[in-house]
């Protein structure tokens, strides 16, 4: 074995308890870094997933008083050219009301082409009873709304709406067959949305072949580029000329984004400070070790060990501490996260054991440990054997 490495290992073995203590110290530091890093990453991801994962990330709507988009099928054909988009769905949305005994409740009647909307809204898995609305005048309603209405599948529900006819408003109503119940885990949506087919809404509100919006989702790793993609679509399709406007989740959720960014930044700060304290710990332990071992170093130098080899001993010590600290830290950190998920009743956060983050953290800590050993290594290199030998 390489002599400096062998000496480094012997020095550790000689002071076992000191070595074990410092490795435990480093491991705890790294575990905090892994724990905080993975937890906040998972939290952000869960937040985003809950917030924008199952909703429209880019939306095209009318920019005029007339809310209807004509020739939407042509626009969808153009949008299909964009590879960044994973889902494109037209929606015919109209405000409506329903009667609940004597109460009138406001609802949003949403007409989708079910096959197109599923990739965006992930509707099918959220139907806890019944099936998707696929035929004319079939609808599904949310959990909370049904808690009030107490309907069963195949029951009917009359929905009222207003249709503009010239200058006048005209009341319309249709009786829908309720074929299922959904739970989007959002009280607002569950209370307000009634999902039906696009044709049912078009017929009820006399919309002909128009829709009120075209909704899109982007590739998961392009989520933070939704604004740029929207700009590209806008330019490519000349939406303004058609009296249309395009919006994206980033522009509309600046506060959430700022919050996420601040959270990410605070996580980085915590990790950086943990890392700094670990590095200072390693550096001071090794600096003490140089003093403790100066007699050995002095005689090794007298025997002809080069200054480079004398410094390598401590660089190897830094490397070894880093490797064991990283391994211990990862194991402890994952254990803490496991404990956290066991103790936490909520399944809101799904912990993602991001291997790239874990490996990058390990690489950073190992690199930092070697850096922490540089100063002790220089001390060791500069140590004058005469001083040691004279000192007795």
């Amino acid at each position: 074995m390489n002599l400096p490495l062998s000496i480094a290992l012997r020095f550790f073995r000689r002071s076992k308890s000191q070595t074990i203590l410092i490795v435990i110290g480093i491991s705890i530091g790294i575990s905090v870094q892994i724990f905080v890093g993975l937890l906040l990453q998972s939290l952000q991801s869960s937040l985003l997933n809950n917030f924008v994962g199952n909703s429209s990330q880019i939306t095209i709507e009318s920019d005029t008083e007339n809310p209807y988009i004509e020739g939407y099928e042509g626009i969808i054909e153009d949008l299909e050219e964009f590879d960044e988009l994973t889902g494109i769905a037209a929606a015919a949305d109209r405000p409506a009301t329903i009667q609940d005994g004597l109460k009138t409740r406001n609802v949003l009647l949403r007409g989708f082409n079910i096959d197109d909307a599923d990739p965006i809204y992930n509707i099918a898995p959220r139907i806890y009873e019944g099936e998707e609305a696929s035929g004319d005048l079939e609808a599904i309603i949310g959990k909370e709304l049904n808690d009030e209405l107490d309907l069963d599948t195949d029951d009917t529900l009359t929905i009222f709406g207003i249709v503009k006819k010239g200058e006048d408003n005209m009341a319309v109503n249709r009786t829908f067959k309720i074929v299922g119940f959904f739970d989007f885990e959002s009280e607002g949506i569950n209370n307000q949305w009634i999902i039906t087919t696009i044709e049912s809404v078009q017929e009820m509100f006399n919309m002909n072949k128009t829709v009120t919006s075209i909704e899109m989702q982007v590739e998961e790793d392009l989520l933070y580029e939704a604004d740029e993609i929207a700009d590209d679509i806008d330019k490519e399709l000349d939406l303004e000329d058609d009296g249309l406007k395009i919006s994206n989740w980033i522009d509309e959720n600046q506060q959430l984004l700022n919050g996420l960014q601040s959270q990410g930044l605070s996580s980085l700060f915590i990790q950086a400070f943990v890392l700094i304290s670990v590095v200072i710990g390693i550096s001071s332990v090794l600096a003490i070790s140089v003093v403790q071992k100066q007699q050995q170093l002095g005689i090794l130098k007298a025997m002809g060990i080069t200054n480079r080899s004398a410094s390598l001993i401590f660089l190897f010590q830094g490397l070894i501490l880093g490797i064991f600290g990283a391994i211990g830290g990862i194991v402890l950190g994952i254990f803490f996260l496991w404990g956290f998920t066991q103790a936490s009743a909520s399944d809101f956060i799904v912990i993602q054991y991001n291997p790239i983050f874990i490996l990058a953290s390990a690489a950073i800590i190992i690199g930092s440990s070697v850096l922490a050993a540089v100063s002790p290594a220089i001390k060791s290199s500069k140590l004058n054997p005469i001083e040691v030998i004279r000192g007795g």
Partner: protein
Amino acid sequence: MVESQIKKLDTQEDFVKTEKKAFVIELKNIDKFYYTGVATQVLFDINLQFRQGSFNSIVGPSGSGKSTLMNLIGTLDKPTKGEIYIDGKRTDKMTKKELAELRNKAIGFVFQFHYLLPEYTALENVLLPHRISKEKITKETKTRALDLLTFMGIEDVKNNLANNMSGGQQQRTAIARALMNNPKILLADEPTGNLDTDSTDRVYDLLRDINEDFKTTIIVITHERRIAEKTDRIIEIRDGRIHLDLLK
């Protein structure tokens, strides 16, 4: 003794006249200053030569400069002025790396506090100079290390860590270690300063055997005249100057 003292000046002159290559160590006009705020001169115009295979001692009271002289010979320190030759090579101009290699190959050190590496066994300590030279540990190397331990009479403790040996055993291990790379020179600074009389005599008997068997040039630094008298040549240093150079 008296005869020897009379002989001393002639002897030194004889040394100078002898062919250069016969000297394994040569110091020419050495001055050494230490700078600790003010410049203090500790060695004054030292001229010394040591023959290959000679058994020498440098004596002198504390602060006389004998340890400084040993550090210069051992290439652990550099002179302020003058030239030092080890085995014909000028050392005061060498780089640190060249000096380290020279020390590893040509010089063996024995110190008062023996300085074994407590992390290693006696055998491993003896093998260290060979490992420092970055050469592989072969069966022959190991046999040589074991032979040295046997020569020192400590083969029984070869697997003991330093702390599990007596002071005398540790010092004999340190001597075996110093001899591992078969150096031409063995420098021993107060090698028995920490040992009882029996162990001291044992160590000097061993040094004598080494000198005779291996033809190693031995220089012992001591402040005890009684010990110095066990060697063939006594160089006395006083106030940084050679006060006496006595060949038996």
